[in-house]
Each structure stands twice: as C-alpha cells, then as structure tokens.
C-alpha cells in the first residue's frame, strides 16, 4: 500500500516534470539562460529574464521555482517564501518547493515551520534525500533549543551561530539547468574521477565553493560544466607533501563512489559501503539499499561533482571531507559531506556518511 502510494507520487511528479518539459522544450535554452545567470550570481539579470518568461507562462512551475531561488539570493526571503508557498499550493506533489521553504524558515530561525515544511517534502516524496538530510539538521537545532530550555541556558549560547551557518550552507538551493536536451547531454558525463596525478589530501579550499561551478559554467554546452567542475580537483597542485598511498587510494575510492552514483551503477555504488555502514534514521540496511536504488535509478540523469577534497588517514580509517554538488533532474543541491572509510585489507569501504562539516 505504502509502496503503491509512493509510486503514485513519483508518477505524479514525473508527469509534472515531463509535462513542463514537453511544453517548454523550446524554452530549454531559456531555463539554461536563467540558470547560467543564477550561477554567475547575476541575480537581477536572472530575475528580469525569469519574469519576462513568466509573462507568457505564468503557471510554469520550473520558472516559478527559479524565481523563488532568485528572490532568496536577492535577499528577499519573505518574497521567496510567498513564491514557494504558492508553488506548494499549486503543486503539492513537488517536494522541492517544500524543501526550499524549509531552508527559508530555517534561515529566519523558525525551525518549527522548517520542520513542518520538510515533513511535507518527505510525505510528498518519501525518498527525497535532501529533505531527509535537512530535517536531520532541523531536528538537531530543535533539540538543542529544547535542551537549552530544559537547562535554562541562554538560547543565544555560543554553540548556536556556527550551526546556523552550517544549515544555511547546506540548504543552499540551486536549480539545475533543466530540460531534456540538457539532460541527455549530461546524462553519462557525471564525475570523471580524474587520473589525479597528485591528489591534494590536505589542499586548501577552492577559492569559493559557490563560485567554483560558476566560473566554469558555459551556457553553450551544458555537459561541460559538469566535467570541468571535476577538473580543478585533479588539476590543483598539491602544496603540501603528498601524504601517502593510503590517502590517494582513499580519495580514489571516494571518487569512484561518486562516479558509480552519477552513472546509476548501483552494483558499484552499493559495494562502496562496508558491512559496518548503518543508514541514518531507523532504516535497515536493506530498506536503505532499496531506497537508494529507487532514488537513483528513478532519476533521468544525475551528476555528482566533488571539490575541495580533504583526506585524513589514521591507520585503517580515512575521513574524507569535500564539497558535493549534486544534480538530479530538476534540482541541484550543494552541501559539505564527510565520508568515513575503513580499509578492509583490500580496499576502502564507506562506514559513515554525513552531511555538514
């Protein structure tokens, strides 16, 4: 029953997207234009463009979604909230607007509302990974607030601000350049794990996370940015002495994992996780695997771009931190991620996956 329902939701969502895409395939370039402007942080120009497009297609969910993202980036959270709220009213089947609403509420410190919105996103799409990740952070914030009340501590206690920033970062919504043309073009591109002549385990961060993809974005060939985005990792010279073979192999394992994910290569993707890996929440391993399979295989295209990798190896354990730009179908989410890996004697296997620093 539950399964049937989620299938139904997926079908609905798919229909909407297909509908939008079919109707607007001629406008695919328009989406791309808006996305490109967005990524180049040219928000007023992006807004002008999107508003122009909306005069002819006022109901278009993609455009309205973009508009919400732009409003947020223009520092107009109240307007963005209105845009996303209306979008959830007209398209309750889409989880992304709920997710972004949650981001905005969280940005205002209203974790209760953020939580409700994320619960709606998850109800809409039970396997929506971003909402699951976000709600985890919101729960943690709410728990911290409750604990402060319980212990009668000042709620503005110093532990709070960094976490808040973390959430903002994590929540940064970026709409991918959608459209079937772009989709097919990018489909197989995914991450090139790059032969990595000298991977930089303790490299300094790429100048700015947000600007990294923007700097390489080329409006003409949507396939390029994805591939190119991976290049900086490989190309970056290692200022510090290269750690050792262990760090290199751990990094290679992480890149292979990202590649398998982007290629929807479920066998290799799932094989990247060790037997010790326990999924978050109350999911069993098998439920999690099924979840991942549904979520990954169901996407028409996925790209996963890693940057700013930081590898720390101690003995049989490696902790790899990086910035992950994830794009799937209509949405792209950037976040920091940490993978903990264990070496089983033959290879590195993921034992823990967490979002955030």
């Amino acid at each position, binding site marked *: 029953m539950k399964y049937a329902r989620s299938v139904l939701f997926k079908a609905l969502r798919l229909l909407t997207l297909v509908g939008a895409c079919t109707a607007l395939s001629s406008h695919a370039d328009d989406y791309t234009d808006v996305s490109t402007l967005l990524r180049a942080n040219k928000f007023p120009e992006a807004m002008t463009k999107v508003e122009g497009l909306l005069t002819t297609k006022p109901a278009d969910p993609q455009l309205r979604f973009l508009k919400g993202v732009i409003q947020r980036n223009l520092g107009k959270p109240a307007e963005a909230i209105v845009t996303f709220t209306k979008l959830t009213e007209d398209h309750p089947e889409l989880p992304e607007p709920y997710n972004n609403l949650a981001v905005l509420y969280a940005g205002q410190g209203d974790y209760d509302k953020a939580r409700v919105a994320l619960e709606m996103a998850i109800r809409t799409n039970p396997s929506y990974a971003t909402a699951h990740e976000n709600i985890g952070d919101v*729960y*943690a914030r709410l728990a911290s607030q409750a*604990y402060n*009340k*319980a*212990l*009668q*501590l000042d709620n503005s206690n110093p*532990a709070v601000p960094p976490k808040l920033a973390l959430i903002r970062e994590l929540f940064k919504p970026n709409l991918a350049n959608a459209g079937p043309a772009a989709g097919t073009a990018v489909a197989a591109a995914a991450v090139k794990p790059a032969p990595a002549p000298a991977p930089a385990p303790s490299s300094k961060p790429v100048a700015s996370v947000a600007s990294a993809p923007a700097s390489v974005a080329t409006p003409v060939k949507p396939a390029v940015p994805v591939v190119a985005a991976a290049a900086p990792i490989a190309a970056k010279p290692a200022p510090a002495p290269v750690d050792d073979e262990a760090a290199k192999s751990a990094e290679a394992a992480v890149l292979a994992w990202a590649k398998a994910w982007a290629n929807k290569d479920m066998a290799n993707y799932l094989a990247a996780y060790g037997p010790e890996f326990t999924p978050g*929440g109350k999911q069993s391993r098998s439920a999690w695997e099924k979840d991942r399979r549904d979520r990954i295989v169901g996407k028409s295209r996925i790209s996963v771009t890693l940057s700013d990798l930081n590898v720390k190896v101690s003995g049989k354990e490696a902790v790899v931190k990086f910035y992950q730009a994830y794009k799937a179908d209509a949405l792209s989410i950037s976040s920091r991620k940490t993978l903990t890996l264990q070496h089983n004697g033959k290879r590195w296997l993921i034992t823990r996956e967490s979002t955030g620093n």
Partner: protein
Amino acid sequence: MTFFFRLVLATLTAALSLSTGAAQTDTKPGIKKNRPKPAPVAAVAAPAKSSPQGAAEARLIAIYRLIGQGNTLSALRQSEQLVKDYPEFALAQLVFGDLLTARTRPIQEFGNVSPEQRKSGSATLSDLKNESLLRLKALRERPPAGSVPAEFLQLSPRNKHAIAIDASRARLYLFENRANGMTLVADYYITVGKLGLEKQVEGDQRTPLGVYFITSQLDPKSLKDFYGAGALPINYPNMLDLKRGKTGGGIWLHGTPPGQFARAPLASDGCVVLANPDLTHLIRTVQIRSTPVLISNQLKWVPPPSLQPRSQEFTKHLNAWLEAKSSGNMAKLSAFYAPDFNNSGKTLSQWLPTLQREVAATQGLTLQIKDLSLLHWKDANETMVVTFGEVATGRRSGLTKRQYWSRQGQQWKIFYEGVV
C-alpha cells in the same frame, strides 16, 4: 532509536512496564481498586490553570510509556504538544529534546545534551534526571488502595481534606475525607528544602517534619513573583517544635516562579513548592485551619481499620481527662498535665488558674467531645495532636480545642492546650 528505547527502559524503567496510572482516578465508594489503567493519551487536554490530577505530569508519563512501547514518533508528537502547552516544564523540554535527537542519531543517555550544554548546565541536568526518577517512582510505587498514612489516626468530619507529604518521593498526597473514609484524590510532585529535612533552626534551608495545619492563604498579588500562584502557610513551629527549641518560620506550600514549571527536588529554603496549576488546585480545594499537613520523610501506609486499636487506646486517656474536667476535681485534672506544660509562655502553675475558671464556668455540666481528630506523630518521642469541640451538655456550641499530648511510658500527658 533502539538506544533511546533501551535507555528509557533502563533509566526511566519499570514504570513503563508496570503501566501504573499516572494519577489515581478510581475513587468511587465501595469499589475495590484495581491497578489503574494507563493514563489516557492526553494530547487533547488543554492546559488548565488548575490541575486536579497533575495533567502535565500525566502527559509526560504517557510519553514515557509510548517511548517504552517503541512508539517514538507518537511520543515526539505528544511531547511537542506538551512543551507547547507547558513551555516552562523543563523536564518535558529535556524529553522533547531527546526525542528530536533520536530522529537523527542514537541517544546515548537520558538528557543527551551537547558537551557545551552539559558544561554549563550540569547541575540542572542532574536535577532534572532526579526529578524524572522521582516522578516515575512515585507513580510506579503507588500507595496501597484505600490505605492512609499511619499518622492520620482519626480525622473528624470537620477535616474535609488532609495533606500528606512523602519527602523521600518528592510527593504530596491530597485526601478527601468522605463518608466512607479518607480517599486519595490527587498527588503531586513537590520540592523541599535544599539541605533536606528536619528543620531545626532558622535559615537551615530544611523542611520541617511533623504534623501541621494550614493557617491561612496568601494572595499571590501580595507576594513576590517568586511564590507563583499563591501560598498556604503552615503552623511551623508547632507546639512540639517550640518545646524542642526549634526556630524559624514562614514555612509555606507555594507555587513556582515565572519561567519554571517545577523546581528541582531539593531547592527551596524549607518551603514545599508545587507547580502552579497543582498549587492552585490545592488552594481551591482545602480549608484553612482544619486541613492537616503531615510532612514525613517516608510515609507509612496502613489500612484504616488497623488504626482503630491505637485510636481507642488513646481515646480512653482523653475520656479520663474529660471526666476529670467534668467532675471539677482540680487535683485529679491537673494530673493530666505535664510538668513542662507551656501555653504561650505560661507555665503549668501560671496556667492552672485559667483552667480552674473554665471548670467553674461549666460546673455541674457534663462535658462532651465532638469532632475529634487525632494526629499521631512518632519520632524519638510519641506525640498526639488532638483537636476537638468541647461542648457542655445542654449547650449548643463550645470552643474548638487543641491539645498536644506526649507519651510518657504508659501515661499520656498534656504539654499544650489552647483554643483554635
């Protein structure tokens, strides 16, 4: 998730499996009390200003029970509602925090706060853990059905209510004196003195032990915010305390300050502190002057019939005193009074003329005792606090008297007597 489940079973424990009622509700006459049913899920209950049954606590216990059943999602929903209704209920906030945390990672222990929070709030955290354990313990280990504290030897119809405090359980029990006997109608979590019990001197931050009466009711408007919804002072130091040279005063049952739903188990300067809704219910329910307040380290619960022999035994002494007084034989009568008798500073020899005048006033009339109440306090000594109406035959009314009798071997002697 499972960690949290285990934790509750381990630390908060058997209360859950025992499924005792959060508050005893079965008080119908003549019905044998069975183990109370689990408290109903109370998500619907709006926060009342007065809580006859400790509504907030009942809801907290219902949440513990849900956790014990592994139903953490319902527990989360209900704790969310509970903290919405009682945002100052710190223990509820702690449980809410744990249930939220449990959605993201396993809970290591009850009150799974961050290291920073632990650092700045460790004392509060351990107080909350104690509060939780005490609340659960009091609800798990219920007084046997129909039983009463042994100190309530006999209560008169004029004692419409009685209060008994078990400090070891941080619990106040409220009784109603019904036609069929004393009935436990509610019980509440309480706070006692920072430094514990057995108050001796002024400022020792201890709560007195003994049998007292509510003397008045203080309007919260006339009080500092600190006392919350109001106050019911008790008559500490009582005549026994004074005889023992105890000092201090101003021992009240009072509410909690703004920002605090409940206080830690040991936190007052000697007063007994209740949550404001509980205190409000108490204020609305009990009578001034005629409501006894028993404060004990650990109450001993007995079936009421087991008290009869002792009550009858003492009543013999009281009747002998009454007979002596009716007879007007001062020599015989004065033998009932202890050498260290004291009435507001009057020694026995100073007080006997007063007694004599009283006797003269009712000369020739047989005296009767009405509405007798006997409160029996045992520590190193044995004391009987006796309250009754003394009415001469043919008269319609008389004075309400209170005597403190002290046991001396087989004898009982009066060491205080006065009009209430």
